[in-house]
């Protein structure tokens, strides 16, 4: 690689919202003034101790943070190598890491005087988290969700409705997460005056990738303290699944400058990386392009038309990835792997049976690679995996794949 290794991996983005060539603000003019307002509001909130105190209070009393760092003893024994810890963000209120980001953004929306919140959702976890925060603060909430995902994530659709949100099934394109994001952007362009777009992952136009990362970094900060307390040292490796990549960047960011820590991200390989349009691994199978407000690795054809991608997990089935991951891959700080649907299903079952923890299909992808890496590593190797969501939402879909139970 010609690129010089930076002194620090954690100082991005630059003033133009770039991580190397990635990121930026590729949006319609209508949205530009609002995005600049948002950036200013966030910069101001970041330096306001009251904002941080409010978040910390919610973490303790509403989300249930800190989430535990749990030594998966039977899994460790079964794999016969590295000592595997789970960072248990699946125990958060609403069942995933998504709430960390949503509460930050909703507090910011309140500071900006916005009364109407829109969101896109794939698996429904971000939609549920957004609907939850909107219920708590009495805000109108509209969630865009691909019609296919509405079908495969029924329990979450019901939860959102119960929480008072309007769920709009999106019928365009492949009717999954990418199309939900297009529709949310169309709503935002139309209702720009009163609406705050609560993006669910560390992607989109600047300042979203940095802002979402900051809100999710509580995962990595806690994990660092907890592993130091448990082991008296930093972990040897950390690992997380990647769709847009918000849980992963949240875990990774506080460790980026700890050179001794190996970092792994796991993309969704769906039916396999060699199957055309059969996976959602944008880093492994994509190239740099511009979509949804940022430059990043995208799955697309030679004409720059975006492909739909596939994953068994509705949360990973997105043809792009957060721009900071795109950069971390190119500078070589993070190693990106991928797991197929089949590997994720096997990990889903193994974890349920050995640890009494039913993981969401998304972290089951990370777990599949833990199962591959851990046996080859020495017993004193400490590995931390982000268990970023619980699998309750997935049990029916998994049952269908396993031929009923």
């Amino acid at each position, binding site marked *: 690689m010609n690129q010089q290794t930076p002194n620090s991996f954690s100082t991005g983005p630059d003033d133009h919202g770039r991580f190397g060539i990635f990121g*930026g603000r*590729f949006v319609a003019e*209508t949205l530009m003034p609002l995005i600049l307002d948002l950036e200013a509001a966030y910069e101001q909130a970041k330096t306001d101790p009251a904002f941080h105190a409010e978040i910390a209070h919610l973490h303790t009393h509403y989300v249930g943070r800190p989430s535990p760092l749990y030594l998966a003893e039977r899994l460790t024994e079964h794999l016969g190598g590295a000592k595997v810890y789970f960072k248990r963000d699946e125990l958060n209120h609403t069942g995933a890491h998504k709430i960390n980001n949503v509460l930050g953004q909703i507090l910011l929306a309140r500071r900006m005087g916005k009364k109407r919140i829109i969101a896109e959702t794939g698996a429904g976890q971000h939609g549920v988290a957004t609907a939850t925060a909107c219920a708590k603060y009495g805000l109108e909430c509209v969630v865009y969700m691909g019609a296919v995902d509405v079908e495969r994530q029924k329990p979450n659709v019901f939860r959102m409705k119960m929480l008072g949100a309007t769920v709009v099934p999106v019928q365009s*394109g492949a009717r999954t997460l990418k199309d939900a994001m*297009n529709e949310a952007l169309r709503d935002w*362009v139309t209702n720009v005056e009163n609406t705050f777009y609560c993006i669910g992952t560390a992607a989109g136009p600047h300042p979203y990738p940095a802002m979402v990362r900051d809100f999710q970094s509580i995962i990595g900060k806690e994990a660092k303290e907890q592993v130091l307390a448990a082991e008296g040292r930093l972990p040897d490796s950390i690992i997380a699944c990647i769709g847009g990549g918000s849980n992963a960047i949240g875990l990774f960011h506080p460790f980026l400058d700890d050179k001794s820590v190996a970092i792994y991200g796991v993309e969704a390989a769906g039916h396999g990386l060699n199957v055309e349009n059969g996976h959602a691994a944008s880093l492994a199978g994509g190239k740099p392009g511009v979509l949804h*407000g940022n430059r990043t690795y995208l799955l*697309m054809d030679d004409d720059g*038309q975006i492909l739909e991608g596939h994953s068994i997990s509705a949360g990973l089935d997105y043809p792009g990835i957060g721009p900071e991951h795109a950069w971390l891959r190119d500078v070589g700080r993070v190693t990106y792997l991928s797991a197929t649907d089949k590997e994720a299903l096997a990990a889903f079952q193994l974890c349920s049976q050995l640890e009494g923890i039913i993981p969401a299909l998304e972290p089951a992808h990370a777990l599949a690679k833990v199962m591959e890496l851990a046996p080859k590593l020495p017993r004193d190797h400490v590995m931390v995996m982000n268990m970023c969501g619980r699998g309750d939402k997935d049990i029916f879909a998994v049952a269908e794949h396993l031929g009923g139970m």
Partner: protein
Amino acid sequence: MTTRIDRRFAALAAENRAALVTYLMAGDPDPATSLEVFHAMAKAGADVLEIGMAFTDPMADGPSIQAAGLRALQAGMTLKKTLALVADFRKTDNDTPVVLMGYYNPIYVMGVDKFLAAAQEAGVDGLIVVDLPPEEDDELCIPALKAGLNFIRLATPTTDDKRLPSVLNNTSGFVYYVSLTGITGAAIADYGKVGAAVGRIKGHTKLPVAVGFGVKTADNARQIASQADGVVVGTALVDALKKSLDADNKATAGTVEAVASLVRELAGGVSAGRKVAAE
């Protein structure tokens, strides 16, 4: 250096008439019909042709133009074929200005230099790229201006006086005022506000100001033409084309005329608009 766009707007201003700027997607419903339709539009009174570059994820477009893009992609349209279509058009029409409109990704993937060279070669005069605000001018706007193409920027109701200079700074050809905050195909709520908005923009630039989003009928066109230098019509034309297609979205014997007759009506509205204003 002037482009066909500069010359056309100057000629129309001398006639004291607004420009009719018409939009259709390249390759909708197929490249051959599309070429015929563009020629027919120019003959029917379209002063500037905006030609859509199909993209899978048109984030600022409503259902009509989304569907038009999908029809074009299904007919095998690519950016290369769109450029070839313009080159074909130029073989028999060397006067009508052509503006390509779309999203950045297909251009970025082709490579900016390669795209600009091919666009010039084909006879393209200007570009409108929806997802490139002034903050990203280094990407395509500056190279396009250097290559002698117009880079036409959208100004919107959210573009306030503080921001307007940076939006207009590298704009050339004309300014496209989007009359509403929303996606293509929505309706204009208040014609009274359009004139004031055009006046506000003209306070910052000598460029012609064309107004679009929500113009559907000859009467709408007349009202806008009395307040602006150009009237942009897109969705209504896309809808007229769609209505003429058969059940499998294939062109019929009536397709070209369906579009041409609406263009004639709109052109009539645009002419009437300027007369009213002059009285």
